[in-house]
Every structure is written in structure tokens, then in C-alpha cells.
């Protein structure tokens, strides 16, 4: 039972412990030091994330670690496979970018104005720790605690500005998230009652199709869909993500919404490999398609830029769930070998970068103009060319035009739809792309329109902040050069392959 602390295992623990201890330290030291602690931790956390990905890639196997050297089912296990490694690196990159962007908006200061900086930087680190805990958690209840950590770190971000309508948005978000968590917990309880363990690897061996398993998985999926704001449970998302300050919106839309999606993937592909029926997957795909259509249409009708981007998030989340009908029971081979598996994950990653860049660009525009009404955007293209260019790059990825990560993701979903001869998903993907094009060009047309006399900006936006936004948007575009075939990294450590245990 001796659990030699392998290099890999230590890294997994660091991925969670570092951000959380940093947050505790910044809570103790106060607003003056919170920013410095966060900025010191970002490169360290990035190297830990890249190191985890390297170890997983070199070993070509799951990196497993038993906490307290207790073997499951008694103890809790951390597991990092290819999928979690990709998400951990994405989270580290994005949070570092958002941190650099947010320095101007939440400068380090003591005294009366210290509330927002202290709360933002502490919550930023907590969100990071919670995300890493979700990505490498191997035990269903440990994942519940990680989800709660994520929810409690995300809700205060919504009402950070202290405006009245953000409190209502934060309260609605909290109620939806709590209902989701309690349904997830109920499903976990049923699984423990039936199979006597909460460890994902052990469960996948013991679980068999039956009413208890169906009830548990459907409850847990319903709970996670409420937290991931999939249509029709998306009501809380637009006011919450639009009301939050720009860097907070970027984290919420880019990363926090992806964690429940990640757990639905864990649930359907790891806890119950090969068991979910086609009908259930079609329902999930149908909800995704509805999210794409309604989200995009609602986005087209928005008057404010941040609300438009928030509804675009609701739509893009729909794409993520198209992965299930195409990959749950493929015609040939394993689910993770299908193009839909890589397409879905790539959509999550590219959407994270693109949406973060768009929200930050919208934040800069709102800061410069003093408002974010789309009708009043005329001339901003001339005043803030770099920001609008970054917004366009992000839009590129949302529309799925080459060369962008969004294009590759949607192309793989299309090929998977054709391969699985479920052509209707292809129609939805294309329609979504056209609608996304609609609302992106709507904004760009207004922004690039000539405003007659030159625009007077309320405050000058420093080039460095705009550069960060462009870099993130470029990351979304660079993902477009990923080869158009199922990626090898994402197939590491799938249940079918034998797990070489790193004790």
C-alpha cells in the first residue's frame, strides 16, 4: 500500500494546493499583496500544468495518485488522463492571460478601495484551484466538493461591482448552481448505495445498466446541465456573465461553465463506458441543438454587447453537447477514437480562448465609451483598432471560419456527423455557424462604421492590455492548425486502454 510520491503524483497535488494556498495567503495579507501573490503563482502554476501534460504524454498513460496513500474505494484518487491534461493547460494559460489583463482594473491597494482587488485576485486563484480539482478528481464526492468550491468562487465574481442588478443575477446563479449540486449529490448517493464505491475507475467496473444506474446518471446529468447552463436551464447565465466585470466574465464564460461539461463527459464516458443508450444521447444532442439555435437568435436580438456575448456563450455550449450523440456509441471503434470526441474537446478549448478574448475586448470598449450599447459603437473601430481586431478574431473562431480552432472543432463534428450518418447534427452545426456569423458581423459592422466626427474616449486604454486580448484571440486562431484527425493526446488513458498505475 506504500504509495511512493512519484514526481507525477506530487505535480497533481501541487496543481490543487498551490492556487488554494496562494488564495489563503492573499486573504490573510489583504488587498495590497493579493495581486503580487497571484502574479507570482501564475508562471509557477503554468509550469506545473505543462509538466503534468508532459508526464502524461511521455508515459502515454493515466497519471494516478492515491491521496494519503489510501487505496480506493476507501481513499480518494487523483487521475490525470489526456483530456484532463489538455484542460489543465488551457485553464493555466487562460488564467495567466486574464491575470495580466486584470492588473489595470484591479490594482493592488490597501484601505477603503481594497475590496475589489482582494476579492478578485483571491477568487481568481480559488477558481483556478477548483478547476484543477475538477479536472483531476477521481472520486465522485471529491468532485462534488470541487464543484462547490468552483460555485462559491464564481458567484461573488458576478456581483463584484456592487451594482443592484448584479445581486439579483448572482442570487439566481447561486440558486441554479445549488439545485444542480444537490441533484448531483443525490445521484452520487444512489450510486454509492448500489455499488459501494464512489471511485470512478472502480465504478466503471461494477456498474451495469439498470434502473438505479439510469436514475443516478440522469439525476447527476440534470444537475450538471443546470450548472453548465444548457438550454432550457440557461436563464441564469446571460445576466450573470454580462453583469460581472470584464475579466470575471472571461473566467465565467471561458472556464467555469466548462467544468460541469467536463464532468458530464467523465460521467458518460468514464463512469458508464459504452452503457448510455442512443436515445439518451440524442436527447442531450437535441438540447445542444436547441441551445445553438435559440442562443444565437437571442444573441442577435440583444441591444448590449456583453449580453450578446453572454447569449453567444449559451449557443456555443450547445456545440459541446453535440459530441454525445456522435461519440457515445460509434459505429466503429472506441468513442474516443471518433472525430466527435476531439471536436468536442477542441470546441471547449477554442471557445474558452475566443470567448475570454471577446469579453475582455467588450470590457475595454465599454471602459472607453462608457457604455456598451451596440447601436452606439460607431467609430470605435478607428479609436481602438487592436481591440476590435481581437474581437473579430474571437468571432472568427465562434463562426468556425478557417484558420481557427472553432473551424477545426466544427469540421470534426461535421465529419463525425457524416461518419455516424446522423446528418441532422451537421445541419445544426452549419446553421449555428451562420447565426454566429450574423451576430459577430452585426457588431463589427457597427464598430467599423464611420462616426462622422472623431470619437472622444473617456479613458485611454493602454496598449499592453489590448495586446493581451489579441494574444488570447490568436491562441484561439492558432488552434486552427491542429491536424484534422482524432488527437492522440486526448486518447491517453481512456477506459479501454490498460491503466499503468503510477503508484
Amino acid at each position, binding site marked *: 500500500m*506504500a*504509495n*511512493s*510520491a512519484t514526481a507525477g*503524483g*506530487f505535480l497533481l*497535488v501541487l496543481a490543487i*494546493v498551490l492556487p*488554494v*494556498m496562494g488564495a*489563503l495567503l492573499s*486573504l*490573510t495579507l*489583504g488587498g495590497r499583496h493579493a495581486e503580487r501573490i497571484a502574479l507570482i503563482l501564475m508562471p509557477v502554476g503554468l509550469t506545473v500544468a505543462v509538466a503534468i501534460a508532459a508526464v502524461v504524454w511521455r508515459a502515454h498513460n493515466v497519471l494516478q*495518485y*492515491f*491521496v*494519503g*496513500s*489510501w487505496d480506493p*474505494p*476507501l*481513499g*480518494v484518487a487523483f487521475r490525470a488522463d489526456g483530456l484532463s491534461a489538455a484542460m489543465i493547460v488551457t485553464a493555466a494559460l487562460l488564467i495567466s492571460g486574464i491575470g495580466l489583463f486584470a492588473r489595470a482594473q484591479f490594482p493592488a491597494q490597501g*484601505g*477603503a*478601495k*481594497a*475590496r*475589489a482587488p482582494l*476579492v478578485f485576485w*483571491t*477568487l481568481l486563484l*480559488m477558481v483556478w484551484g477548483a478547476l484543477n*480539482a475538477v479536472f483531476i478528481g477521481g472520486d465522485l*464526492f*471529491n468532485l462534488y*466538493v*470541487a464543484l*462547490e*468550491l468552483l460555485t*462559491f*468562487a464564481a*458567484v*461573488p465574481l458576478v*456581483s*463584484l461591482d*456592487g451594482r443592484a442588478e448584479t*445581486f439579483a443575477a448572482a442570487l439566481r446563479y447561486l440558486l441554479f448552481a445549488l439545485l444542480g449540486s444537490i441533484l448531483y449529490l*443525490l445521484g452520487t448517493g*444512489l450510486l454509492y*448505495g*448500489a*455499488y*459501494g*464505491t464512489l471511485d470512478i475507475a472502480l465504478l466503471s467496473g461494477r456498474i451495469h445498466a439498470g*434502473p*438505479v444506474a439510469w*436514475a443516478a446518471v440522469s439525476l447527476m446529468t440534470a444537475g450538471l446541465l443546470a450548472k453548465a447552463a444548457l438550454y432550457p436551464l440557461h436563464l441564469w447565465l446571460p445576466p450573470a456573465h454580462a453583469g460581472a466585470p470584464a475579466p470575471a466574465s472571461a473566467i465565467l464564460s471561458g472556464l467555469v461553465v466548462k467544468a460541469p461539461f467536463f464532468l458530464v463527459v467523465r460521467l458518460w464516458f468514464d463512469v458508464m463506458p459504452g452503457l448510455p443508450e442512443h436515445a439518451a444521447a440524442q436527447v442531450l444532442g437535441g438540447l445542444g441543438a436547441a441551445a445553438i439555435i435559440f442562443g444565437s437568435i437571442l444573441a442577435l436580438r440583444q441591444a448590449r454587447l456583453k449580453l450578446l456575448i453572454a447569449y453567444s456563450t449559451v449557443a456555443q455550449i450547445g456545440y459541446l453537447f453535440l459530441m454525445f450523440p456522435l461519440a457515445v456509441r460509434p459505429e466503429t471503434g472506441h468513442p474516443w477514437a471518433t472525430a466527435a470526441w476531439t471536436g468536442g474537446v477542441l470546441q471547449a478549448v477554442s471557445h474558452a480562448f475566443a470567448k475570454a478574448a471577446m469579453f475582455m475586448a467588450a470590457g475595454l470598449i465599454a471602459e472607453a465609451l462608457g457604455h456598451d450599447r451596440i447601436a452606439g459603437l460607431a467609430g470605435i473601430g478607428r479609436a481602438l483598432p487592436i481591440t476590435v481586431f481581437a474581437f473579430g478574431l474571437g468571432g472568427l473562431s465562434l463562426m468556425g471560419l478557417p484558420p481557427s480552432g472553432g473551424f477545426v472543432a466544427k469540421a470534426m463534428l461535421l465529419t463525425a456527423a457524416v461518419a455516424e450518418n446522423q446528418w441532422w447534427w451537421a445541419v445544426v452545426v452549419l446553421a449555428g455557424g451562420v447565426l454566429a456569423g450574423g451576430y459577430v458581423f452585426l457588431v463589427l459592422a457597427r464598430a467599423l462604421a464611420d462616426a462622422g466626427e472623431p470619437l472622444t474616449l473617456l479613458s485611454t486604454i493602454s496598449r499592453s492590455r489590448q495586446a493581451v486580448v489579441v494574444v488570447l484571440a490568436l491562441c484561439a486562431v492558432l488552434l486552427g492548425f491542429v491536424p484534422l484527425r482524432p488527437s492522440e493526446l486526448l486518447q491517453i488513458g481512456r477506459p479501454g486502454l490498460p491503466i499503468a498505475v503510477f503508484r
Partner: protein
Amino acid sequence: MAFDTGLAVLVLGVAVWTITARDTFAAVVGFVAFGLLLALVWVRLAAPDVALTEAAIGSGVTGGLLLGAHTHLRRTETAAAGELPGAALRLAAAVLCAMVSAGLAAIVLLLPEPAPTLAPQVAANIATTGLGNPVTAVLMAYRAVDTLLETVVLLLALLGIWSLAPDRVWGGFPGPHHDADPQGVLTFAAQLLVPVGILVGVHIIWDGSVAPGGEFQAATILAAMWILAAMVGLVDAPPVSRRWLRILLVAGPAVFFAIGLAGFAMAGAFLAYPPPYAKLLILTIEIPLTLSIAATLALLVAGPPERAPQR
């Protein structure tokens, strides 16, 4: 068996009353009664630790919090009454919830009667943790990472509440200033009850490693005593910006992390305890953890800063 049926019916009756009561005050009072009855159910389910937690946190502190909130929101009672959803929605919701309950009830009947259990493994490994109480062994040793993350969740909820304060009172005193007349009945009761409560709390921590009890229950009792003293004005919440308060709040999780990381060197894994010192290490974690959780729970009830600090 008759007692169980009676208790279950009573619990359901109070729960139905809590949901269908017209007035929010009646609902909150019903909820407190529901919580205490649920504690009794936990005793019947042979889970004294959980009964303690349910009574202390589930109905006690939560009930107090909800009552406090209701006194503020009483004026909005009539305004909101007009917004009750129409009969159609209520019927649809009732049907949906009835189906959920029926489905769950069927699942409960389907679950295996002698359920698969980890009790044997817990019993087999409990010697290395040096603890007598199996639940504390699970909380502090086998699944220590869940307990650690959960205390961080508590701290995060507190930071979330503090972040709601307007900027002008940031760093100030949380919650309104309470003052009761020094000769009043409540003051007398508080002066008598607080020492007894602290004694009971300390007993529960110390006893927690062997008998039912533990840091969460003890912390709740200590927090309740602090809230009672604050209600009477004997003590006032320190300003949020005080450094020692933040250190006290963070001490519990910080010690937990430190000993957990030390586990790498001493026992080969994060949060692993070398068998000979296991009980000592767990106790050194539990004491600061209880104080931190007690302070966090008390400040969670006190609420965001409301009175500006004398800067």
C-alpha cells in the same frame, strides 16, 4: 417500528407545513422544528455524529440565520404574496415533484437491502489512524482531502459574503451592533450559558476522536456561544480588516495543508500520517481547525461589514 413510523409521519407533516405555510415566519419556525426532528431520525439511523451536526448546523445555526433574515424581509411579505404562480404551474410542479418522489421511492426500494459497505475496510485500517470514532477517521484520515477542501469552501463563502459590502464600509465591523440591557434576562442567560457551552464544545472536540463528536459539531457550538454573546453585546465582531482575525480564520486550513504536505516527507503521500504519530497529528490539525471553523461560522451569521471602521 411504530416509533419510526410515527417519527417519519411527524417529519413529513412538519415538512409539508413548512412548504405550504402562508407566512414565511411560520415556514422558518417549521423548518427549525423539522431540523430537530431530523436529528432524532439520525439517532434512529444509528448516526450520532450526524445527529449532532444536523441539530447544531442543520436546524440551529441555519434556523437562526433564516429567522434573522426574515426580520429584515418582513416588509416585502405582502408585495411578494401577489406573485404566486397560477394554479396551472402549481399543478404541473406538483405532478413533476410527485413523479420525482415516486421514482426516488422506487429506487430506494430497489437498492440492495444489506447495502455494499466500506465499514469492514474502515474497521481494518482504523488502527493505523489511532482514532476510535470511525466517522472522524473517515473525515480526518481516509477522505481528509474532502474535509480540507470543505473548510476552504467555508472560507470562500465568508469571503463571498464580505465582498457584498459597499466600498465605504469595507474593512468595518460585520453585522449590526447589538446591545441588550445589562440587567436583562437574556444577558443573565448568556452569562450562564456561554461558559457551559464552551465547556461542552471543548469536550466534544476532545471526545470526538473516540466517541461521537468532532470539529464541525464542536465548532458550531462554540460559534453559537459567540453569537449569543454578541447578541447580548458582551462581545462585538472585530473589524474585517484586522490581521489577527484573518490569521485565525486561515489558521485551520493552513495547518491542515502544512501537515498534509509534510506527509510527503514523513509518510510518503499528501495527507498521509506516519502511524505512530497519527493521532497526535490529527489532534494538532483539529484544534486550530475547530477554532477557524467556529470563527468562520460565527462571521457567516454576522454577515457582511456594515459599520465603517475608525480608520
